[in-house]
């Protein structure tokens, strides 16, 4: 049948999303945008987990995604709190200007 989707298509979609995430992570200059590209990469990885879970007919891949979501939630809470704290002291969100440790 021609209407069936190969699992590799899902994986390649995940690869595209992950690469865009990597690119955004390196190119973006705003802390919040950089943080969001990390979330994009996590999501791309989650898609591969779900695709492989479907391939093997097992739920352990889906449970891994569940754990990734929990960790991402915790990470977002702490990360955004750090961003708020940085913004209070430095009054900027640009990563090039947050260079107190550099000199």
């Amino acid at each position, binding site marked *: 049948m021609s*209407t*069936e*989707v*190969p*699992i*590799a*298509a899902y*994986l390649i*979609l*995940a*690869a595209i*999303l*992950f*690469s*865009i995430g*990597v*690119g*955004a992570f*390196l*190119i*973006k*200059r*705003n802390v*919040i*945008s950089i943080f*969001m*590209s990390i*979330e*994009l990469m996590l*999501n791309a990885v*989650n*898609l591969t987990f*779900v695709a492989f*879970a*479907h*391939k093997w*007919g*097992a*739920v*352990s891949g*889906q449970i891994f*995604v*569940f*754990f990734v*979501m*929990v960790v991402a*939630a*915790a990470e*977002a*809470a*702490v990360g*955004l*709190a750090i*961003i*708020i*704290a940085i913004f*209070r002291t430095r009054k900027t*969100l640009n*990563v*090039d200007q947050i260079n107190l440790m550099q000199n």
Partner: protein
Amino acid sequence: MQLALFIIFAALAIAGALNLLLQKHPINSALSLVVVMLSLAVLYWSLGAEFLAAAQVIVYSGAIMVLFVFVIMLLNAGEEEHTTGSRAAYFAGIPGSLAVFCLLSFVFLRESKALGNVHMSNAPAGAMSNIAQISEVLFTKLLLPFEVTSILILVAILGAVVLARKEEHE
């Protein structure tokens, strides 16, 4: 049906991700990330993971991204300025991500035959629903990791409270 769903939502996800990369204002990036997450939820559904699809919508787009939007609104973050560091990032970023993409898709395409197609009947459904299956494994085999995540969340809450609290000067 499966193919149409995949094409529509894969295109939507890629468009959202590219928009995240190209938009200058963080709030536009955040909203395009929400689009990516919602279309990924539909793709999870098409792979037979209905609980994860719902969790993706509730946790990622409903909680985490709302938090991002909230912080952007709270800090009134403006458009990105480009400074000295960013040109180097272009030279490292674009080739780097292209290399990652080439490597990953090479591996996936090589193994494409072995991976096979998506079958809805192949999905872990049958008599038990997806949620029952997940919870059975989660609360028996993986009980310890599950409990440890609750401690992780507790620590995260405490950390967030400590970090975001205004320091009181006496």
